[in-house]
């Protein structure tokens, strides 16, 4: 693998281009959480009432937080990268400079994670304004770190999909068969306790389940030893997906 500090240059390039999209993306990042929190949290929460001693919103927020990181990071490295690679031919000019293909792809993954972090952070701010506060300042810091980890993981996974994608349509398989189901099987909106055993097992194979578990624990400040396993799953998947993503993208970029 031929990685260098030039990853930062690609990140910088994306930051330059982001200036033009910053207002709409911030608006979307603000409206989306409000939509979830208001409809589910207040509408459904009114029926559900208290959940483990706290209002439903306390259950919902940590899950929605990591889902939003997942969505944003994934889409950035699916559609964003695909446009840059196929439509704008940006990678072609990048790899003719001292920036290597690996630098360029890693820079885009880092960018995808950064976009996820922005979405997650905005959502956290909205939640805090609504009175749903993390347990402590440490929780806030840990949540930010967690968002970066999750962002890198989903950005890398998306990069693998992009490297094999012949067209935009291909992304539907990934989003509809992988991303969307995770929203419902990972305990974002309701606990998984009442699921039959096979569904519980299935959910254990979903990376978002582990992200939600950690997020919820960190948000409430109540930890348990099972979280270490979840963290291990996330880090292992992240490192694996990153390595594979760089390889498969390089294969696509260099012919």
């Amino acid at each position, binding site marked *: 693998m*031929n990685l260098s500090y*030039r990853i930062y*240059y690609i990140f*910088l*390039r994306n930051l*330059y*281009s982001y200036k*033009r999209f910053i207002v709409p993306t911030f608006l979307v990042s603000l409206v989306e959480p409000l939509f979830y929190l208001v409809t589910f949290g207040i509408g459904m929460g009114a029926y559900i009432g208290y959940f483990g001693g706290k209002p439903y919103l306390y259950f919902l927020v940590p899950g929605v937080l990591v889902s939003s990181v997942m969505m944003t990071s994934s889409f950035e490295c699916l559609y964003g990268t695909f446009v840059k690679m196929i439509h*704008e*031919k*940006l990678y*072609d*000019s*990048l*790899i*003719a*400079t*001292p*920036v*290597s*293909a690996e630098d360029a792809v890693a820079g885009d993954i880092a960018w995808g994670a950064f976009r996820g972090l922005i979405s997650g952070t905005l959502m956290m701010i909205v939640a805090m304004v609504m009175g749903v506060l993390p347990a402590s300042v440490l929780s806030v810091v840990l949540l930010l770190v967690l968002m970066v980890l999750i962002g890198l993981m989903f950005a890398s996974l998306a990069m693998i999909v992009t490297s094999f994608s012949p067209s935009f349509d291909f992304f539907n398989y990934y989003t509809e068969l992988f991303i969307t189901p995770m929203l419902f099987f990972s305990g974002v909106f309701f606990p998984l306790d009442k699921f039959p055993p096979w569904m519980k097992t299935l959910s254990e194979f979903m990376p978002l389940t582990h992200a939600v578990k950690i997020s919820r624990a960190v948000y409430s400040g109540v930890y348990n030893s099972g979280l270490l396993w979840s963290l291990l799953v996330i880090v292992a998947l992240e490192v694996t997906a990153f390595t594979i993503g760089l390889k498969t993208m390089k294969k696509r970029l*260099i*012919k």
Partner: protein
Amino acid sequence: MNTLVSARDLRKNYGSLAAVDGISFEIREGECFGFLGPNGAGKTTTVKMIHCVSPVTSGALTVNGLPAHINNRALKKMTGIIPQEITLDVDLTVYENLIIFSKFFDIPRREAKKRIAELLKFVELEAKRNSKISELSTGMKRRLLVARALLNQPKLIVADEPTTGLDPQARHLIWQRLRQLKTEGVTLILTTQYMEEAQQLCDRIVVMHQGKILKEGVPSKLVAEQIGREVVEVRVPKEEDERIIGQLAEFSCGHERVGDTLYFYCRDGHGMMKKLVELDLHNYLTRPATLEDVFLKLTGRSLIE
């Protein structure tokens, strides 16, 4: 003169297709070297290997004494690329395109700003400094690609069909700039399908076809050797070929029938003209031989797809 690029039995396979099929050549420092050939001849593949974005399948390829390899950042640092396709960053302005690109080459910001101001002047785009890429004409985009290729003050410039799709004014401006660079000592590698472009710019050329080099030489000498001085095109029905070829034999040093036209290659156009008047043929044309004739003679006049 020193050799800058040297290729020996260079090959590139895509699966079972041999895009470049064992070619050898040497490019000297400070010259303009042209790769000519129809679509799919292997020109672009060859130059992509030279500027280290495509791996070599087999054979030896060195640039500036270093082996060309996709991870050779040192070579990429001394090379400027004017790509065939317009690969500008459409999300950025003209200036941002250049400042970001200068980052990729680790050019310090102050130096980059100075070079960008000079280069925008060089390609006559000063007024478009803060324009979006979508607001530029094709000619302006190509000129910006030239400016971008010069940011790192390259020793070697690879121009892959740099004037495709341009109007004559824009094309001549690019040619002038490329010639100017050559006088400054830059080595230029050009691929093109425009014979006029090759004649205007190149010191030496190779004609490629189906991954192989068919001929190598100085453009004007190639024309003289391969074709002669003049070409006479006669439009007559095919049935009359034998008769006319016989009648013109003493003046011609070669002929070819393509479609509705009979081409005669000759050293003495004047004599042939007289004869044509004598034969009372009306539909004919005499013109100086060009590189295009060499190209067509070598690669065939029928369509290549």
